[in-house]
């Protein structure tokens, strides 16, 4: 049961954003990705999640190749991503944002809306309960009926995570979950991610906050200029001179 990324290459014009990137992790594991700006981390997420086509290489989940699937189909296959800049449905309330993410709704078909109203109602009630539970879990309950566009940056990050959870993924790709989030909320998000991971959901996390990330994940991948520089336990990787050179600009001797 693994997520496997093999030899991904991606160029924009002459710029090699990703150069032969490979990584592997148990689908229910926790893996962090760090690297300086422009290292290709977010591009890697976009390629993995089907938002960008790879020039070379491939992605598979549980041995099933995902390369021919579009973004939506990859999410349905169990790998759901979040975005670095939150993309909430800003006119919908927090509750509606979460409910919209639930998979396989009869009421999302026009025929279902008009021909099976009772079934739609029953499903809605169940999804609503699930959304309430998710809001309680992420402490979003106080803003349940607030339009998502009015949330703070940190709350939007939590909502991104909540929506991803409502989609029933096996693995979540988190893109900078702590960026622009106040320290109290960071602790909260970390705590929730750890709890969810204990329940069997895998996480691949891009993050700049090294200190927070090192506490969260047992293993790190370091990227630089489109390549994987090092992989291993956080303290080992961060002690690597090449990593210090690339990531910290050699500033720390």
């Amino acid at each position, binding site marked *: 049961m693994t997520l496997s990324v093999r030899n991904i290459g991606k160029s924009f014009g002459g710029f090699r954003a990703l150069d032969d990137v490979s990584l592997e992790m148990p689908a229910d594991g926790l893996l962090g990705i760090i690297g300086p700006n422009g290292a290709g981390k977010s591009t890697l997420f976009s390629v993995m999640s089907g938002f960008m086509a790879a020039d070379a290489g491939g992605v598979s989940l549980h041995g099933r190749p995902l390369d021919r699937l579009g973004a939506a189909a990859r999410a349905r296959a169990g790998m759901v991503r979040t975005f670095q800049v939150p993309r909430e449905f800003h006119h919908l309330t927090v509750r509606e944002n979460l409910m*919209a993410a639930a998979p396989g709704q009869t009421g999302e078909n026009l025929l279902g809306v008009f021909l099976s109203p009772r079934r739609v109602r029953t499903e809605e009630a169940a999804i609503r309960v699930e959304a309430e539970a998710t809001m309680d879990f992420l402490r979003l309950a106080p803003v349940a009926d607030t339009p998502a566009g009015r949330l703070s940056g940190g709350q939007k990050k939590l909502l991104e995570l909540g929506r991803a959870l409502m989609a029933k993924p096996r693995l979540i790709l988190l893109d900078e979950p702590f960026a622009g989030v106040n320290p109290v909320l960071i602790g909260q998000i970390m705590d929730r991610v750890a709890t969810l991971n204990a329940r069997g959901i895998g996480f691949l996390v891009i993050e700049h906050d090294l200190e927070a990330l090192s506490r969260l994940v047992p293993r790190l991948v370091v990227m630089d200029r489109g390549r994987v520089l090092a992989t291993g336990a956080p303290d080992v990787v961060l002690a690597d001179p090449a990593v210090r050179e690339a990531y910290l600009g050699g500033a720390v001797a």
Partner: protein
Amino acid sequence: MEAYLVAIAIIAAIYVLLTLGLTLQYGLTGLVNFGHVGFFAIGAYASALISMQGMPLVVSFVCAAAIAALAAYPIGLVALRLRDDYFAVVTLGFSETVRLAITSEKWLTNGVQGIPGVPKAFAGMGIGMAGAVATLAAIALACGVAALMLRRITRSPFGRVIEAIRDNEDALRALGKDPARFKIQVLALGSALAGVAGAFYAHYITYLSPDQFIPLVTFYVWMAMIMGGVGRVSGAVVGALLLMLFLEGTRFLRDVAPDLISAVDMASVRLGAVGLALVLFTLFRPQGLMGDYTRR
């Protein structure tokens, strides 16, 4: 006078139907459809031609809706891969193509000469007011059904998803839902409403020619939607009625000031009045009369 009011009410109701279709497409889903009149034309010609083959109007109306919806399907498949602005251009091009096809395919549509003698709805009720009033009742009923249908949709999970599409399509894809699947349904249903509006138009006016289906009609519908309030079902109804008030109300300007405005100038004055109203609305009430979708 009564006959005139009934006539205006019928045209207004036809605009209500058209505006409801666009409200579903743009107001709720964010699809910038600049070719609405194309589906209106398809519905009008389809119902006229089918009824002139001796089919009952019930059949021709259903066909008008179905054919307009089917016409939306291929354009949906092609155009929904495009970005918003390109989609707008493609739909505008589509409606002009429909008009040119009507102009050119004389064997079917009689070209620019048009089709006279389209069967009148409720012709059995004689030539007096009764037929027109019955037509008005029928189209008002159609508007009511369409409005209820839209309201039902806005409160359903389907409505939630299409509003999510309007807000952020990529986020929806990231959650495992294909925006294209929803957009095609929205495009087809909105076009079916335009098709029914076209059928009502055909069997009320009883004469069809391509110059009735110019892009201006599409933009009248846009104006109605903007004045009423984008994304509101009630806004579509109020906006269309308001549009009619402006279009028809300007007629009476000549009664007030006959020397000021010649008959020839009237068309320009009408357009100017609607344009001015639109400018005033965007300045002083950008959310439209009934409020817009940022309602909460």
